[in-house]
């Protein structure tokens, strides 16, 4: 064997060695994701074509999927998820953007204080804040007390017993909990924009609103896309709020899809096949919406 050849083979083994140790670094994580996400996902697909009680299952073809169309609770749950998504996510993201661009102002005082206060709701657990809001909006709760004192109401209004007001409370609670979270992402994104761009805009006489729409929004687009996808994903999977704020009520009027899946699998007589079919619908919705958002995000380039 010639010397040159030997050298290349040595080099090869060195890079091969690195290649192999590279695989060692990512093996545990990859392995876990395969077992904990992809295998269950595949099993859920198989399960969604079966029907029966508990673990007594037999093949049923697309029966479960056909059943979804006639299930009024499911249709209500689907509607609710979309109501929350279409009302809450845009308000929250816009509010977070406005707050972030205000806090990005170098001349603003008490910046740290405002930022901490607005981000604070994120430190509370989902169950906790759901219960706090449930208590605040109860018939004998604080909000009713204020409304009565101010003379808007004579007796307490049961916000959580009426479908529309109950949904409104859920939306308010969601905005309260997540605005600060999204704001942090925008603040992080804003640090990558040179501050001089803003100063130049100010010297040119651009109004804050114009600066917001012409500079902040376009430059933050990747971050906005990221938060939009994350929020969509989260809203379609709402569970804790539906369970602890309204318990899906009144009469399933505010129930979400995840909550209904939980009830079908673990609360009522377990019907895993039907619940799996429903969960697959969420999966498809999440994927389609993420795809649409990415396409829309790309086009504006």
């Amino acid at each position, binding site marked *: 064997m010639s010397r040159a050849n030997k050298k290349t083979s040595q080099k090869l083994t060195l890079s091969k060695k*690195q290649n192999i140790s590279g695989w060692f670094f990512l093996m545990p994580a990859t392995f876990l994701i395969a077992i904990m996400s992809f295998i269950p996902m595949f099993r859920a697909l198989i399960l969604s074509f079966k029907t029966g009680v508990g673990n007594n299952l037999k093949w049923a073809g697309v029966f479960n999927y056909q059943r979804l169309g006639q299930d009024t609770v499911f249709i209500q749950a689907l509607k609710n998820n979309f109501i929350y998504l279409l009302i809450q996510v845009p308000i929250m993201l816009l509010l977070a953007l406005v707050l972030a661009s205000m806090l990005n102002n170098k001349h603003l005082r008490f910046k740290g204080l405002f930022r901490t206060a607005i981000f604070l709701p994120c430190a509370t657990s989902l169950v906790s804040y759901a219960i706090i809001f449930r*208590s605040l909006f109860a018939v004998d709760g604080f909000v009713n007390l204020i409304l009565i004192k101010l003379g808007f109401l004579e007796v307490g209004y049961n916000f959580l017993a009426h479908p529309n007001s109950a949904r409104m409370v859920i939306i308010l609670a969601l905005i309260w909990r997540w605005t600060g979270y999204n704001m*942090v992402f925008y603040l992080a994104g804003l640090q990558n924009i040179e501050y001089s761009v803003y100063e130049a805009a100010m010297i040119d006489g651009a109004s804050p609103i114009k600066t917001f729409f012409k500079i902040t929004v376009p430059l933050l687009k990747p971050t906005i896309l990221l938060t939009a996808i994350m929020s969509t994903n989260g809203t379609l999977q709402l569970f*804790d709020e539906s369970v602890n704020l309204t318990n899906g009520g009144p009469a399933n009027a505010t129930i979400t899809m995840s909550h209904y899946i*939980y009830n079908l699998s673990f609360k009522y007589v377990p019907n895993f096949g039907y619940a799996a079919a429903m969960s*697959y619908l969420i999966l498809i919705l999440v994927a389609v919406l993420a795809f649409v958002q990415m396409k829309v995000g790309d086009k504006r380039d």
Partner: protein
Amino acid sequence: MIKFKRSFQYIFLTIVSFISVFPLFWMVISATNTSLDVTRGVMVPGMALFENFQKLISVQNVSQAMMNSFKYAIILTLSSLCICSLAGYGFEIFHDKGKDFVMAIILLAMMVPFAATMIPLFQMFSKAGLLNTTAGFMLPTISTPFLIMLFRQSARSFPHDIIEAARIDGLNEFQIFYKMFFPTMRSTYAAAMTITFMNAWNNYLWPKVIMTDQKSITMPMLVANLTEGYVTDYGVLMLGVLLCTIPTIIIFFVLQKSFAEGITGAVK
């Protein structure tokens, strides 16, 4: 005009800050008051904290749920940081076609809603005898695409010359990771720790599914149980909520700064 705009900004930010903090303030005040005082709208700390606490521990095993929550969350956070930072580093430093492909598939897992994997996971775990165990609690969320991505981003800013130099000095790949990457990426680890601990502590759906034994329940489950009676004792309820919130609030304040730094690194 400019002055008007400025003061508008301050007023707006003050109102938003007030709304953000008020429910938490109300929670703390209510925890120290009797249920009757809470419904009366008392806004000053009361004397009923101890009484509420005694009522709370007489209906629920708080210390056990607290211990459970800490145990699950700490073990999960440590393993998750370990496994995901290794993977994020590996995907960036040793990247080639094969690994980039695996990464793309892992990112797809981000899109999988938990509802879709919950039922098969429950079936798998009950067969494997993992109900009511720490392993059962943590296995589905140890390895998350989000954390892997976070660490991959931070590895991107890690100078490759250092790695080459360390290799020449005879350090093996794992030593480079452990001795060079780990100490320089403190803020990323802090951000990852904050996110993972909070998610683990606050997780509700999955523990509700697999913790079938009352002895294994977590703090959020305990708090949710408190609302199940017909009459709600607001003082006791808010004390439960407060106890469930204190650990995450502490973590938040301690790690707030590095959290922001870590996220900044990731969004770049």
